[in-house]
């Protein structure tokens, strides 16, 4: 009896040990690149190319950051990135929320087809559409503006779908109660649906933020002047000005790039996790 007990305890100990080791391994796997990014940006050029590499910078320096600011008109790129990203989030919300509400809560002719179209849009990769969109943007004479980076992303199929799912979780009784309370449809959306779908809305906004902020290929194709290019393309310019690749400078640029994403993610991580389930009141 006694030995059986300890045997079981031992097995439990081993299992949890393995599980812990696995989690630690995964954590390192994901965090190490970030760590590498951070320390490299604080190294000198010389230290960044020594072998074996150093895990802690010997000479802690901000020289790489200074170079980034001196070599680029960073503010212009930053401004473009911010305008594009905010516009995309705002327009996506303005378009997506009513669309999702209609798809979740109304029955109308062609609803199934429309939902299928949303799902189809969800599945088409941008690489397929960019040539036609480019031609369209060119004909509209928009290539010298930020519009090609904003307008095509005004509606997000993923966002509409996720919000629709969240809206569908709100009990029908609550909406009916609001109608009996003489609430307009707009009021039902703003006072009942959106608070209930807050987590999903945050998630959708965060994904559009990351998508827009990190967008590289699309703005590269859709812009023909530095005036309208975002931060991602500026970081790229840090690379091809020197003969050799100056890793600390590139990493410093990337730090500037990734910092807002990390901050926002840390602030919202709870919301994203709870976006999976809506806690209703019974």
């Amino acid at each position, binding site marked *: 009896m006694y030995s059986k007990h300890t045997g079981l305890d031992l097995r439990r100990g081993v299992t949890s040990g393995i599980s812990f080791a696995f989690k630690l391994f995964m954590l390192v796997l994901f965090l190490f690149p970030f760590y590498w990014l951070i320390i490299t940006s604080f190294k000198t050029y010389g230290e960044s190319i020594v072998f074996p590499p150093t895990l802690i910078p010997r000479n802690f320096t901000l020289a790489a950051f200074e170079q980034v600011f001196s070599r680029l008109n960073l503010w212009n790129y930053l401004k473009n990135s911010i305008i594009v990203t905010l516009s995309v989030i705002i327009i996506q919300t303005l378009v997506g929320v009513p669309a999702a509400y209609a798809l979740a809560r109304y029955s109308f002719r062609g609803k199934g087809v429309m939902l299928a179209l949303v799902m189809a849009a969800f599945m088409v990769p941008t690489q397929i559409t960019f040539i036609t969109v480019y031609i369209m943007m060119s004909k509209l004479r928009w290539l010298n503006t930020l519009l090609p980076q904003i307008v095509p992303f005004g509606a997000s199929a993923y966002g509409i779908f996720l919000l629709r799912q969240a809206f569908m979780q709100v009990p029908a*009784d609550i909406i009916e*109660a*609001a109608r*009996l309370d*003489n609430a307009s449809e707009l009021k039902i959306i703003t006072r*009942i649906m959106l608070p209930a779908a807050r987590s999903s809305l945050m998630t959708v906004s965060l994904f559009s933020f990351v998508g827009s902020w990190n967008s590289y290929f699309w703005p590269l194709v859709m812009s023909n002047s530095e005036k309208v290019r975002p931060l991602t393309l500026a970081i790229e310019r840090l690379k091809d000005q020197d003969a050799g690749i100056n890793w600390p400078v590139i990493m410093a640029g990337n730090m500037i790039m990734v910092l807002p994403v990390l901050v926002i993610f840390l602030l919202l991580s709870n919301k994203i996790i709870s976006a999976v389930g809506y806690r209703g*009141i019974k």
Partner: protein
Amino acid sequence: MAKIEFQNIHKSFGTTKVIENLNLTLEDGKFNVLVGPSGCGKTTLLRIIAGIGPATSGRILLDGVDISNVPPGQRGVAMVFQSYAIYPMMTVRQNIEFGLKNNRVPKAERERRISEVSQIVGLEPYLGRKPSQLSGGQRQRVALARAMVKEPTVFLMDEPLSNLDAKLRAAMRSELVQLHKQLQTTFVYVTHDQVEAMAMGDCIILMDQGRIMQQSDPETMYRDPDNIFTAQFIGTPPTNILGLESESFKLGFRPEAISLSVNPAPDKAFTHRVSILTREMLGAETLYKLRLRNGQEVMARLTDSSLMVGDELYLQVDEENLYFFDSEGNRVRKTLSQQYGAMLERVTRSHES
């Protein structure tokens, strides 16, 4: 204060017809109870009044005015949902205030009404709380307060007590009756529980499969049922119905109308020899399942608990407690001596032999 009239109401969900050509008037100021088994259309009727599940065709009149096309929020009705349907992201106060704000009630008036209503339902200490911080009974009160604060002409309630535990339900039942006395407005209350219907209603509307089986006060519903369905739905155990071979009518009598004795009494209209199959002692009363000579079984509800399984006795029912129904299940209201005396005598004799 309002009288509600349904005129030629039809309602179907897709191809399923739930209600066909229904006409019904709910009197002003009454505590009306819509009762019936699930799927009978009682909630559908309530939703038609509220405007949140409009009829497929037909008209609904409120005090003689056709409101069929009036939006739910402008009908002057308030509804308490079975799930309470409280807005989870608003505080208790905001929940109660929401309808008033939407109806542009001035702030001072809103404050006055909220404090009055929250006092009546006992929610004053909880106005700042979120619904998730309330118990089931408190949420129920929020739903009630939210309806009351609008000072509606009609109160609609869809099984509002079914999510409460037995004790709280009994307490709320009498509170709602008191509330009705106080407000004197028209109540329309939906329930599947006949006990609740009998206990609370001034006027009961018993429904089955989209049709109205009987509309009357509780007393009449119990003592004078129009058909077999009513006789069996109201009262527990249900009215005993005996199908009598070779006769085109059916005989009914309530379990509590039965008396059992060792020797047959000569003055009883219906006498039959029975044996006791089961006995359930419930405290004040005892339920006996009895078997008749021809194998049919009936339930008896007596205060006498001294009878035992296997006892052979005479079942007897007074003339005024016997109901007759035709082959369709509809009541035939003629006294025995007028029409069925001879027939019954024959029945009784044949069963005794």
